């Protein structure tokens, strides 16, 4: 699938191209296994996958912190494995790791990075003021950043990455620990980056946010790209583009499943399955009868979400939105 996508992409204006990148830190364990993808000018591209899928390793190879064992990475046609300095000029990064902001105020941290990235002092000051205001961080603008909570530190790191945005802005889990209201403000700023001429590579394991924020995405699992496209195209993959969700009554055995129900995942008392549009009526009837029989507490039928696609592709239910203590009955159909 990845290779087909590459052929299509090479015909349009790709800013970043990753060709068959492989990386192993420990012999025999491929952290990146033949990864190929491309970022088109002016899009928000998501790299979605569970913890340990190899997303950050790929980012570190793009930015020149890690060297691939094989494969090629080009940025504006420049081979950045040979010229990592070019990648550092062209990309601005919000790393997953901590940013060194001890001793600095929010404003100082943002302005310093802006200047380091070649920004003019006056414009950087203005842009820092704008970001602080739009993310409603004025209260923290002149406070020492080492005392900040995790969420506030992430916001400062985000501002540092976008104060003088690169051709590509790489955001690695930008919203971790950030409160829901400021998350919305942050996504507005991410969208605004496109208007400023940047392309965004968003790395996340948060499926719901990715679905709303990205134009296209690649789903990565165990070092491999397992799916790529727009959220819509990924959801439309196959006939079963509807989802049935039902919650069983406590201490009730799971019912026998009819044939039209596919890709069933049990999470505690919650069952999520995919079905084709033509099966909506029989599915409704089946679910209703289960409710009447006292087997099901509640149910719903709606369009497939990216989370469903993600869980199916990744093959295990460790998406952030699912409870961690679920019992997976290994019912994911291929």
């Amino acid at each position, binding site marked *: 699938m990845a290779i087909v996508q590459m052929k299509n992409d090479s015909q349009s204006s790709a800013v970043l191209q990753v060709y068959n990148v492989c990386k192993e830190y420990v012999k025999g364990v491929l952290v990146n296994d033949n990864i190929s993808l491309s970022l088109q000018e002016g899009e928000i591209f998501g790299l979605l996958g569970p913890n340990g899928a190899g997303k950050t390793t790929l980012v*570190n190879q793009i930015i020149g*912190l890690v060297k691939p064992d094989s494969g090629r990475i080009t940025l504006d046609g420049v081979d950045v494995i040979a010229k990592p300095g070019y990648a*550092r000029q062209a*990309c601005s990064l919000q790393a997953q790791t901590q940013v*060194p902001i001890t001793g600095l105020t929010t404003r100082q941290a943002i302005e310093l990075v802006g200047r380091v*990235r070649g920004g003019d002092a006056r414009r950087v000051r203005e842009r820092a003021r704008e970001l602080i205001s739009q993310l409603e961080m004025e209260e923290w603008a002149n406070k020492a950043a080492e005392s900040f909570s995790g969420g506030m530190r992430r916001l400062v790191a985000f501002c540092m990455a976008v104060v003088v945005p690169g051709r590509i802005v790489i955001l690695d889990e930008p919203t971790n620990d950030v409160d829901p209201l400021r998350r919305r403000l942050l996504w507005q700023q991410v969208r605004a980056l496109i208007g400023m001429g940047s392309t965004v590579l968003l790395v996340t394991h948060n499926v719901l946010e990715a679905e709303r924020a990205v134009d296209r995405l690649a789903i990565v699992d165990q070092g491999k790209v397992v799916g790529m496209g727009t959220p819509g195209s990924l959801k439309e993959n196959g006939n079963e583009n509807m989802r049935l969700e039902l919650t069983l009554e406590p201490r009730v055995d799971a019912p026998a499943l009819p044939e039209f129900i596919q890709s069933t995942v049990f999470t505690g008392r919650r069952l999520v399955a995919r079905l084709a549009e033509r099966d909506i009526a029989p599915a409704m009837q089946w679910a209703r009868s289960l409710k009447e029989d006292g087997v099901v507490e509640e149910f719903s039928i709606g369009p497939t979400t990216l989370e469903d696609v993600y869980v199916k592709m990744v093959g295990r239910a460790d998406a952030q939105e699912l409870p961690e203590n679920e019992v997976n009955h290994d019912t994911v159909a291929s």
Partner: protein
Amino acid sequence: MTQSLRSYGLMLKWQALSKKPILALTLVVQVMIATGFIFGLGFFYREITPDTAKFITTGAPTIILMTVGLVLVPQIVAMARTEGTFDYIWSLPIPRLVYVAADATIWVLIALPGLVLALVIGAIRYNFGLEISPLVIPAVLLISATGMFLGYSIAHGAPRPEMANLATQVIVFAIMLFSPVMYPIEQLPDWMAAIHRVLPVKYMADLSRGTLTDMDVNLGLAFGVVGAWCLAGFIITYALVQRRR
């Protein structure tokens, strides 16, 4: 070049600000170590002549600068490695050695007040005169740079950051007790003296003695040996900070 200087200035500001929370404490500790070092000497010797005091006091700059370069810097770098902050710093569009230079500059500036104080207190307390040559500036810069580059080599070269911390403990012990800084090299066993004729520590002490007093020291040899170690430290540091995992 202009771009590198601009980056150096900005990183200097960044590093100075980042040390702000511990700056006062670090300065106090440095001054305490320096003055404690001078007064502590009195306990080693029943009677201390001005010449002996001069010999020992002028070893203080080497001890202080090596403590900063080979102990403090590797410990701070090891902490940053553990936190992963270098992943961020190395992603910035600045030459990595510019960052190292800015960091080293701040550390030398932090070490300088204690260093000067140790010399002044030593001269007054033990009643000897200092004869300061203009060469003291390149000498102090060379000692500092060598200590920093070797410190960076240990900090970035250690397979695990904790190992760098452990190495610094061994180094500080070796420098304090088994290096001909506080006593003449003739007092060491032959095999240890032979090692110290290759290592930079003795020559660093010679540099400070030769540029701060009228002591008879082969300054050319000292500049040569310390310069060679500085170059080696620079090359290793350069290779390590450029390295990709």
